[in-house]
């Protein structure tokens, strides 16, 4: 039980700190510190260019994908060293937004399933931020029930022909590569007829249409495929093995998301201090409960890190991170706007209380509760995998896919 660095960890931290001091884009620091929740916007420069520049610089010194093998562009550091790196990187980590899906989900999937040659050509570029990756999983008819996707892949010699539609694809507009799950056999049960590919997003027949989100941003998109051709060499896993490949991605998704999610609680304390509300009984009661949840998340992450550094695998208990953080931030935002009174109506960052950060949280937090496994799916995972309760009844499990009834599509 200790929070101290071992001598090796302390030496690593010193090295990380020194490198950041010499290399980070310090001019952006003030802007990054106040950057809100949701998409990154910078006044002084183009955010994507700034992100790419920082990622590239990190890659040169092995900090871009710290855990990965060096031959794939990584730094081969230990789990605990990655955590230390993250602590030291601090606000500059906000620049990694465009690469999170690639580094956290697509990269590990490629690393597990692609050929050696592919790994050596794709992964270093991904790590260095030269290529942006997106995750082409969800469809209008299938989100939580991912195995119900319909985008078709049909074999034509050495190639596959793709037709269909994906939706909610984050970052597709900027993406160079996509990880694409398709249906190759509608005649068998739904989990068994799937096949995974990676695809050049500039391929003829790929069309990306941004979707305007409820918070007025548009990080996610619709992606249409019309007779898009993918070489068979870009298949990951065997034909029909797509579900297993997808599980690699999803496992990594929950892990990378679960780490250290913002909750808005420190910001709420600042607001209460500025408004001189820290002696108000009603405020104290809410604030303390929020703080206890937020602190519980922080130390749950610390416990996972401790387990990781002892060489243990973090288990499904990791699911609680996003489950707690999503609704916590939503409640914090609602409460902050209650405290702001009618001024809470103002979103304009120049006028709004605390640069409008609680308004931004209010409008972004619903997404946290849906993306990457909704609250309900996460509760199911905890109930089934941690507590050992029975799985839900699945009426479609053994039916051939084409006989499964379906209702309204999401769009």
């Amino acid at each position, binding site marked *: 039980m200790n929070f101290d660095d071992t001598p090796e960890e302390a030496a690593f931290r010193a090295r990380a700190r020194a490198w950041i001091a010499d290399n980070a884009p310090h001019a952006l620091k003030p802007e990054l510190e106040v950057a809100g929740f949701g998409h990154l916007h910078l006044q002084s420069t183009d955010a994507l260019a700034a992100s790419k520049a920082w990622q590239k610089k990190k890659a040169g010194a092995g900090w871009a994908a710290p855990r990965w093998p060096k031959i794939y562009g990584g730094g081969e550091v230990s789990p605990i060293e990655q955590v230390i790196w993250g602590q030291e990187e601090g606000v500059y980590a906000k620049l990694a937004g465009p690469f999170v899906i690639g580094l956290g989900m697509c990269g590990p999937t490629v690393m597990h399933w692609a050929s050696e040659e592919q790994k050596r050509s794709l992964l270093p570029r991904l790590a260095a931020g030269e290529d942006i990756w997106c995750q082409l999983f969800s469809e209008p008819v299938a989100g939580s029930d991912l195995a119900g996707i319909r985008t078709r892949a049909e074999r034509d010699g050495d190639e596959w022909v793709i037709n269909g539609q994906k939706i909610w694809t984050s970052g597709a507009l900027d993406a160079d590569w996509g990880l694409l799950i398709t249906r190759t056999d509608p005649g068998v049960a739904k989990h068994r007829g799937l096949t995974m590919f990676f695809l050049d997003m500039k391929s003829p027949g790929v069309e990306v249409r941004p979707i305007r989100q409820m918070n007025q941003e548009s990080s996610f998109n619709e992606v249409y495929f019309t007779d898009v051709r993918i070489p068979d060499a870009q298949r990951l896993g065997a034909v029909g093995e797509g579900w297993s490949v997808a599980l690699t991605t999803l496992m990594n998704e929950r892990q990378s998301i679960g780490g250290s999610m913002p909750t808005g609680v420190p910001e709420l304390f600042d607001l209460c201090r500025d408004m001189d509300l820290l002696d108000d009984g009603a405020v104290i009661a809410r604030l303390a409960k929020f703080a206890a949840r937020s602190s*519980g998340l922080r130390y749950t992450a610390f416990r996972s890190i401790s387990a990781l550094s002892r060489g243990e695998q973090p288990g499904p208990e990791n699911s609680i991170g996003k489950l707690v953080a999503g609704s916590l931030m939503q409640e914090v935002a609602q409460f902050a706007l209650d405290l702001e009174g009618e001024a809470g109506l103002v979103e304009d960052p120049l006028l709004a209380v605390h640069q409008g950060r609680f308004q931004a949280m209010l409008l972004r937090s619903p997404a946290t509760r849906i993306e990457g496994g909704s609250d309900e799916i996460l509760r199911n995972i905890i109930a089934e995998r941690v507590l050992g*309760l029975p799985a839900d009844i699945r009426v479609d499990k053994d039916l051939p896919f084409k006989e499964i009834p379906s209702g309204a599509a999401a769009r």
Partner: protein
Amino acid sequence: MQLDFSEEQRALQADVRRFFERACPISTVRKVIDSGDSHDPVLWKQVSEQGFLAAAIPEAFGGAGAGYLELCLVAEEVGRALAPLPAVSSLYQAAELILMTGSDAQKRTWLPRIASGDVIATVAVAEAAGNVAADLISAQVSGGKLTGRKWPVSDGLVADLAIVAARCDQGISLYLVDLASAGVSRRAVKSIDPSRPQAEILFDGVAVELLGAAGEGLGLIDAVRDRAAILVAFEQIGGAQAALDMARDYALGRYAFGRPIGGFQAIKHMLADMYVSLELARSNSYYGAWALATNAPQLPLAAATARVSAIEAYKLCSSNNIQTHGGMGFTWEFDCHLHYRRARYLASVLGTSPLWERKLVAAYRSAA
């Protein structure tokens, strides 16, 4: 960084768990409740011989000298077993207060006997509705004699020694009171958790001895409760885990509409929420254990955080455990209500949530 217990500490915990499984089955708890006894003397003697609860008392004063991390894990097992023992009164509070502020003579007189279980000690602060505050204390000491009425006093009927908060010229002070002294009269009062009995004690000109500096009583109570809150949080997570395990087992075995009720999402998700609440409380308690063991400056914040979340987790797990059991959960015969009652005892005994929420925010504020 290791926010976790060591293998040796886990091995000790496993020993303690096996001990309680053998020495404190639920029938032992029931026996205390049904007989109206204050505690189980046989169990108390065995626990004392093992030295489990004296883990944090230095060897020089008759304790095991193991440390607070060990005591935290013992507390978790006490909570899991619903052990009917005066641990919160005698060890987590009274012994800690004497250690914290007693004179050398007071430590040598009392600590070895508390450690060996020969003396049961308690703390008597409350006299009226409301969390501890100077204006709620009217018990008074003048000329070395204590007069007043204290209720509820946990384990007050069986205790040999009480640390009493009372008024004196300098404000509120703490006093050591031998409860066998002339002028002490006491009676049992019905307790919401009969496995943790309560008493009312009348003091009529009882000879007392000052403990710690005069006028510092409330500060000392506050300080000792920060420490006790962390140990109690471990009892709470032990109890909450037991309640969750009971609910899970029942949900797997009970059938309705042709399948286990644990297959219905309303039940699954309720249990998942219990698990989440418990994990948050557990993580906060581990942090508290670290702060307690290292006497960290973050102790007040860690204690309040652990307490607020452990109170909530045990309340949630014990009430939803009843819900999961349906009508059976509302019977005297099933054990669900034992956790529900214990959760309430532990939520009240060191002062309730509103007090600790204030402490949490105050500590956060001064830490920032």
